[in-house]
């Protein structure tokens, strides 16, 4: 058991290391440098804007932008001597300073709430709350819809539902978000155009928009897995034995349909994480999806890397939970896996 856990942890660490390396190489290859971009833009906007070359050089040195690539990566990962003092890198949990926010530590930007507020008011807390609310909506609406669809399979209700779900899957979420704002805020005056995030009812529109596509996916997957399981031999046997219908549905159908369903839940939740970047930008939601976009537009290397790392950790954790859950529900999966990768 200990070895099993150790193996999993080692794999996760390897993946995260790979993520940092790939992302660093990509960012390094993007033409331009965060500081020079900033100065150029400012010079374009203000004709009398002037930056001393000495200052530029000094700031570049401060953020390590003048170092060779290998040195930058080792500085980010392990740490380096900066001004005669050893500063530990990502292995100590130090995400480094943000370039576009004048050297404010990234951990501070993401995790520190405004003064006098709880942890949930920090950027990270906002995003986590939105994700939890949306996944709750997606699962709580998607599963019953899927069950209803499987029950009325090939009846008119099911046809209407499946066309509707196909529509929800294929509409981009920013269009849905704009539509929601136009309809609910401008026409019906139910919601506010500029939301107040202390108010729970203002969370509903972003949460539902974010949950729409995963919800439709959940419903579709639930429906197909239920229909596939319904036609299995053991279900027919259970019915033939004369078991009460409730027991057949709960024990024989639902439990077995849960395994493929949970396996699909992983990619669906990952999609939800991806939708966060768009939705937070659209509703100017103070979470880390919006921060990510800002960082990308300003080429703020440490910020992008830190957020990518968070995203990767989130996805790995979700995948790990789902892997363990499906192994617990169906021990055959673990056996198969041991055959495939010993």
């Amino acid at each position: 058991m200990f070895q099993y856990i150790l193996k999993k942890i080692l794999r996760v660490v390897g993946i995260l290391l790979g993520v940092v390396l790939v992302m660093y190489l990509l960012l390094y290859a993007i033409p331009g440098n965060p500081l020079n971009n900033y100065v150029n833009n400012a010079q374009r906007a203000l004709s009398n804007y002037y930056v001393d070359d000495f200052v530029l050089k000094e700031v570049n040195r401060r953020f390590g932008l003048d170092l060779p690539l290998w040195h930058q990566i080792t500085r980010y990962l392990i740490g380096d001597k900066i001004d005669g003092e050893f500063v530990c890198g990502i292995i100590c949990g130090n995400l480094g300073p943000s370039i576009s926010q004048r050297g404010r530590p990234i951990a501070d930007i993401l995790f520190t709430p405004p003064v006098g507020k709880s942890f949930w008011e920090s950027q990270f807390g906002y995003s986590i709350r939105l994700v939890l609310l949306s996944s709750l909506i997606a699962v709580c609406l998607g599963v019953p819809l899927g069950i209803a669809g499987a029950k009325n399979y090939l009846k008119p209700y099911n046809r209407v539902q499946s066309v509707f779900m196909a529509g929800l899957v294929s509409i981009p979420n920013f269009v849905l978000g704009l539509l929601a704002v136009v309809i609910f805020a401008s026409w019906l005056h139910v919601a506010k155009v500029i939301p107040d995030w202390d108010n729970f009812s203002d969370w509903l529109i972003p949460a539902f928009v974010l949950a729409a596509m995963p919800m439709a996916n959940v419903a579709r997957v639930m429906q197909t897995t239920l229909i596939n399981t319904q036609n299995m031999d053991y279900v027919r046997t259970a019915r033939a034995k004369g078991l009460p219908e409730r027991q057949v549905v709960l024990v024989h159908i639902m439990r077995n349909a849960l395994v493929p369903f949970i396996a699909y839940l992983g990619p669906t939740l990952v999609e939800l994480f991806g939708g966060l970047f768009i939705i937070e930008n659209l509703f100017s939601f103070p979470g880390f999806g919006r921060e990510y976009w800002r960082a990308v537009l300003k080429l703020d290397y440490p910020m992008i890397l830190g957020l990518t790392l968070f995203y990767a950790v989130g996805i790995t954790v979700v995948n790990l939970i789902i892997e363990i859950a499906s192994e617990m529900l169906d021990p055959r999966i673990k056996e198969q896996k041991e055959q495939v990768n010993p």
Partner: protein
Amino acid sequence: MNTSLPARRKNLPKSVIFALFVIALFSVLAILAPVLSPNDPDERGFKNADLPPMWVHNAYSIGTVDHPLGTDMLGRDILSRYLYGVRTAMVLIVLAIPLTALLGTLIGMLSGFYNRKLDAFLVVIMDILQSLPGIMFTVAVILILRKMLPPTWFSGVLVLVTGYSVISWVSLARMVRAEVLRLKSMLFFEAAISLGATNKRIITRHLFPNFAHLVLVWVINNIPAIILLEAVLGYIGVNLSTSVSENEFTVVSWGGLFYTGRSTLTRNPMLLFVPALSLLLLSMSFVLIGDYYNRKHTQ
């Protein structure tokens, strides 16, 4: 009384007929874009800027027949830009999806069929790519590539196709790998090996036909993804660009319409509404076809 007709004709359901009709319609629009579009999509004129659709006649602005859907803030004709955008969307589908499918199938097969060390290496790469945020990865690739290529329509498309393919092959490769590993443990595979079949024969005769349906399902399910990706990137502004200058790309696409349309939502909603509706129709048709295929093969 023609008795030679088959007794039972296979009727396609209405949803599939509708989907096929929509796809055919968009293909025709894409091919005939230069004929159908009333104006040059890149022609600007500040006198014509911000015209409303032609059916609007109010005190502030009057639409003209020359610009049926109106113009954007630079005076470019929306209908022409939309029609050329259809062309871009169709080219994206035709280029990106087969390329990604080929890449995914090859790597998945390589990983599942050949030696263990290569497999372990490829699995690690897939794990890494899958835990990166897909949109950001694509954006980074686009930002890198678009300074390298000459600014033409085709290189704009190529950049987006590369950005999409580099990350999207992973899901297919994983599926193919798992299926190849499953097939490898079956009896017919063992029989083929013991009869002395070559690798080429095993792959083409015994493996590929057994997982081809997976690739087909993946292709149908992922066609909407590339159009949605283009729209989202366009909306955010990391687009195939909307302006025509020496060092910018000149691709006209639905994403570009979204980009110009999001700031003029109140003046001319057509800029957002028309591409959004066609995006919905087109990707929904592929989803419906995918549903039909699934239904046929599970019963």
